[in-house]
């Protein structure tokens, strides 16, 4: 739509400049705006209903269950904050919190860093670039359980591929199942294999939005590759980083299948995370109130981390 006046740089959403018709405009505008709001809510309604039904209702229900002592059969007994008091005194719960936090602290920066590195490398002109990208993204299509089963085959300390290779080159065996730190490392490695593709995908998309002229200007000013990366690439993909940080943290707090299949939480709780501990309490010993309490604590932790990140991120809305 062209206008007779010269186009001005206005913020998005302003109406084009023109003489307002004072008598007719306000009433039609109000009715128009109400009609627009109704239409908007109409379109949002199906999604909102699903969100309320499948997210909000179970959340509140879980909160309600966490205030009871129940085994899932029949009605539970209301015990107030008893489950939370037990949680605060439970050594195994705190071990799970420490493990989950450590896991998050390791996986998030590593996955993002490796993803960004892979995206930068695969953004330039490279032969078979499409093939490399596909190979890195493919693990995303595999379910967590299948990934973990592959991990079991690779990391088995008796007959696994990895220890076989280590032995073949004369290095000592690593006790991937019976050593605590090694078991933890094996879970982190398998997670990275699985998640780097997703991070790379998002960063690749973000990199397309970084103007080439910025790199040109920097080169002309004498910046080397590392400086260009640090001062242009990293800040310009800030929004993507913000998104990925939150997604990775949420995912890491909720990790279950990789840990459950590969190590089952062992050895001796070395890889026990919040969700595996909650699963054990909820479905093995059937103390469902306690398991729900763990779930609520998990929710609060995730919300807290997200809120902190929201406040402190300075590059989340960077545009050119």
């Amino acid at each position: 739509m062209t206008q007779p006046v010269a186009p001005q740089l206005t913020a998005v959403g302003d109406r084009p400049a023109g003489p307002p018709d004072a008598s007719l405009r306000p009433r039609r505008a109000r009715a128009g705006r109400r009609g627009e709001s109704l239409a908007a809510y109409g379109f949002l309604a199906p999604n909102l209903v699903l969100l309320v039904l499948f997210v909000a209702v179970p959340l509140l229900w879980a909160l309600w269950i966490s205030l009871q002592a129940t085994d899932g059969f029949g009605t539970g007994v209301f015990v107030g904050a008893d489950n939370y008091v037990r949680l605060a005194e439970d050594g195994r719960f705190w071990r799970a919190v420490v493990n989950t936090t450590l896991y998050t602290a390791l996986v998030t920066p590593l996955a993002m860093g490796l993803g960004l590195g892979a995206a930068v490398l695969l953004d330039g002109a490279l032969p078979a670039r499409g093939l490399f990208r596909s190979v890195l993204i493919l693990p995303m299509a595999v379910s967590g359980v299948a990934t973990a089963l592959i991990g079991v085959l690779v990391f088995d300390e008796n007959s696994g591929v990895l220890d076989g290779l280590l032995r073949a080159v004369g290095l000592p065996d690593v006790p991937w199942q019976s050593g605590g730190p090694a078991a933890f490392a094996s879970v982190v490695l398998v997670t990275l294999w699985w998640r780097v593709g997703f991070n790379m995908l998002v960063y690749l998309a973000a990199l397309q939005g970084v103007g080439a002229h910025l790199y040109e200007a920097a080169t002309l000013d004498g910046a080397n590759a590392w400086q260009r990366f640090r001062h242009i690439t990293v800040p310009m993909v800030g929004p993507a980083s913000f998104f990925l940080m939150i997604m990775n943290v949420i995912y890491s707090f909720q990790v279950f299948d990789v840990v459950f299949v590969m190590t089952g939480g062992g050895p001796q709780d070395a890889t026990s995370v919040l969700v595996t501990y909650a699963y054990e309490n909820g479905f093995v010993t059937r103390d469902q109130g306690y398991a729900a309490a763990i779930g609520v604590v998990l929710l609060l932790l995730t919300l807290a981390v997200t809120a902190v990140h929201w406040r402190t991120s300075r590059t989340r809305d960077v545009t050119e």
Partner: protein
Amino acid sequence: MDLTRRRLLGAAGALALPTFLGGCGGFSTSSGDGDAAGGDSGTLTVTTWGTDSELAGLRAAVARFEESSGARVALDVVPYEQMFSNVDAQIQAGNPPDVFRVPYYTFGSYAGRGQLLDLSPYLEDGFADRFTPQAWAAVQSDGAPYGVPHHTDTSAILVNTELLGAAGITELPASPEEAWTWDQLAEVATTLRGSLPAEQYPFAVNWQGNGVTRWLSWLFQADGRFLTEDLSGPAIDSAAAREAVAFTQSFFTQGWVPPNSSVQSATYSSDSWYAQTVAMVWGGAFLVPDAEATLDFEWTATYAPRKVRGGSDFGGNALVATAGTPRAELAAAFLASVTEEESMREFCAGASLLPTRTDLVEQGIEFAVRPELSPVFVGQAGVVLPEDSGQVASPDMASIITVLQDALEGAFVGGQDVETTITAMSDGIAAAVR
């Protein structure tokens, strides 16, 4: 006609609608063995998991029942991993299956919480006599039967005869009375440890995950108990238990078992035997068909060790009816029919499992695969005493399993001493049954 976006979306929607509606109609989580809804009052719903050979035996038993009673049975097969979350969700939603299959160590958590049908009013007099005492004891809760013992399985020792021959061990026990004592087992293990290279081990025990109940076999061999006779408190603070913990702990310190074969390991001991990482493994008869089909080394089976007496795990599954079923008599009739001689013999022989009927145990059954090994497993199962299987039927067995896992993990790989382990087990069991 111009293909505008509106027309394209409209056409796509029109095409998708019947597919969507069709998907809404046929909601089923089963493999399609007849409808799982069972709304019709004459249809009995049975939920189970199973290997192909187990399911073949069950279907034959179902067909026999349908013929003799005229009722319909809808068999709902689900993967084992989903079995109990499925059943629990169905119970909580108020539409449980009429009959389902359950391992003996899980039986108590349903029976002890009033979720199962008390079969006493529906069974004929003398029904209990068809089963061995240890089998009948495994389905009791509070003195009443809440299910039928469909089959059992127990752990004998599967032996890689080539590796043992290379170490000079050629004689294996030929009867439960001749089974190795703990000292003799230690000798065998030391000999094997001497002859095997560092990355191979003498044996592995099948006590991973829920299989931690197999550790109790060692406790029973020392003639110990973990629960009092009325299942109301711990009885594990005993000399027998200390001996059992010390002996099994020595497997790890002596290098007789792979370090990653402890109770919280995620890999099964049978896999390490298939890969020839270990020369012997404790395993159930259900492993026989797969082993025969896939292994390329010579192997056989022999009896598990004894100390004061023989002791073994009463594994296997029971069939139970849910408490709220509207077809109680039909369910009870089905349970009785499935445990008739012919049905049980066909099932056990085909699936390589052990019978719970006294007459079949006395006659012996012949496995379809490696029939000469049937007497070993049947004989091993005969070593289980009713007081052993009765303790595992405790309603709190699931919590006790967790207690055992934590305590034994500490003893096996955490360097925890015997006294601390016994105390942890005793306190944990006391808390679990409270």
